């Protein structure tokens, strides 16, 4: 399950970060680490990008990049 599968307001725990190494590295540097809780705060009116809350701050990500953030319930 990726972060794209979460609905607005739903939260989950990061399971793994995939995708190209550059993207993964940038996400990890921002604190997207396995075991960290993330919440989807919403999406742009056109459905993309989405807003993700993590460690108390908000990041906007395109869905195609968010696909690489795998999450599990918890």
């Amino acid at each position, binding site marked *: 399950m990726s972060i794209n599968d979460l609905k607005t307001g739903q939260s989950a725990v990061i399971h793994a970060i995939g995708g190209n190494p*550059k*993207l993964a*590295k*940038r*996400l*990890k*540097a*921002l*604190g997207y*680490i*396995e075991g*960290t809780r993330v919440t989807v*705060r*919403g999406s*742009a*009116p*056109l*459905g*993309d*990008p989405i*807003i993700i809350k993590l*460690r*108390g*701050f*908000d*990041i*906007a*990500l*395109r869905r195609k*990049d968010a696909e690489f953030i795998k999450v599990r319930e918890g």
Partner: protein
Amino acid sequence: MITAALLGNPNVGKTTLFNALTGANQYVGNWAGVTIEKKEGFFGKNVKIVDLPGIYAMDTYSNEEKISKEFLQRDDVDVVINIVDASNLSRNLYLTFQLRQFNKPVVLVLNMMDVAKAKGIEIDCDKLSKRLGVTVIPISATKKTGINKLKEVLENSNFFTSLIDNDCQLDNEADIYRHIEEILKECTRTTGGDTITPTERIDKLVLNKYLAYPFFILVMYLIFQFTFSWVGQPLSDMLDMLVNDYLVPWVGSLLSDSNEWFQSLIIDGIMGGVGSVIVFLPVILTLFLGISFLEDSGYMARAAFLMDKIMRRMGLSGKAFIPMMVGFGCSVPGIMSTRTLESEKDRRLTALLVPLMSCNAKLPVYVLLASVFFPGNQTLIIFSLYLLGIAMAFIVGWIFDKTIFKKDEEPFIIELPEYKMPEMRDLLIHTWRKGESFLKKMGTVIFAASVIIWFLSSFNFSGFADINDSFLSYLGKAINPIFIPLGFGTWQNSVSLLTGIVAKEVVVGSMGVLYGGDLKSILPGFFNPLSAYAFLVFVLLYTPCISTVAAVKKEYGGKMMALSIVYQILLAWVVAFIVYSLGNLILGII
């Protein structure tokens, strides 16, 4: 003299701190090879502060990070001032940990202590200092508390060089974050749970499914009105009037006894040229005031978020919308504002596309020809030109994105910072710096170009001459055959287009001089509606004016300038040719 590097995440108040420390005593340049601002400032006699770009980490491959890294590796950097958001320590301290590899003393400035407190976060600064091995100074840059303490520490070089604690050789993100969390558990205490912050409340409205775009359009409209109707343009018009109605006649009367060509050089060449620069200034200043306000308030990131899906089709990210929109007023501030974009690719590609947005100066040309050849349909004709410009931006953007900018694919990761009221001082300093750099650097290019064009239009081989018989008219006649396939190949048109390179509205004036008389009755002898429209298409798309070209050169260098000039001439010719040929074909069938 000690040199301090100021470093921190974006949106943590770094600029506010820099301005608070250095006041107006700062100098702005560019880092070598990229369009990232390099700001240096001084306070007291012996502290120099270099403001590095806002970054989240040292090793995720951005130009900003590369610059910071190279700078920190230099021997003359004595201390690193690392400013962090006290209300969001875990992410901020990640960068702090990466700063250790440079073996320089670090002063950790905990900004927004007041915000942290309001969120129920208590920080034990002494303990944090011990655990991290750095000097820790709590401040609030906006409330000006703690700044004196920081100044004192810097002035007395009162920082200790920490040795990297060998108990943790941390080399991956997960380990560093785990370590940070341990430290924070010891040094901070959070009371009160997750409450809905004011920012979330505002976002509920501003990013709402139905209200987001209307609100966005309203904001853009206000900025546009502020710049081009309420404040900037009226000031520019006043300045223009001052120059043309008072200064020019006054200088003219002073020079009345001197040579005819000398008068022309001073008045038409130099004053005309410099005048054309000066009158841009109020527009640029007001526009940047508006943009800085959006930037500092936190709305700019939301605008980028809202526009991303649309802008992506031309190979850009959402934030590039702002310079493009500004381009409808004037390309010069549009190109100057590309600096605020995240990636070098976005900056360059946007700078190339901005001039396709039909600017104010082209409007007089549209109005003239549309009223002569399309009476009753002027609005439709003019509107179609604006749309054509936008369509071209999408097509050209798509092509450039797939060809020359192919390699540079940046993921779109953008922080939506908390909303805040911008600091007046930051806005004014930023705005003033834009104006200053505009005057200093572009002024010279425009000045030189104006004098050259003046020379070409006022002289021929036998000396001072009328424009009808000048070098420029020879040039116009020589290039004229290029325009014959487009349906408007008269030498008067060619020369008018050449003079339009100074400023687009000049095309109308030149046509007046060259056709010699009332254009409304003369032009139908030289154009039909189709060739008139092809001419307008050409005016919309061809080489940007000198001021715009100078802006591209200043921000991106000679190569980009050449690319900008060449591609637009080619584009203008091809599109005007298609319009004219297709039009003839259709008219033939009908």
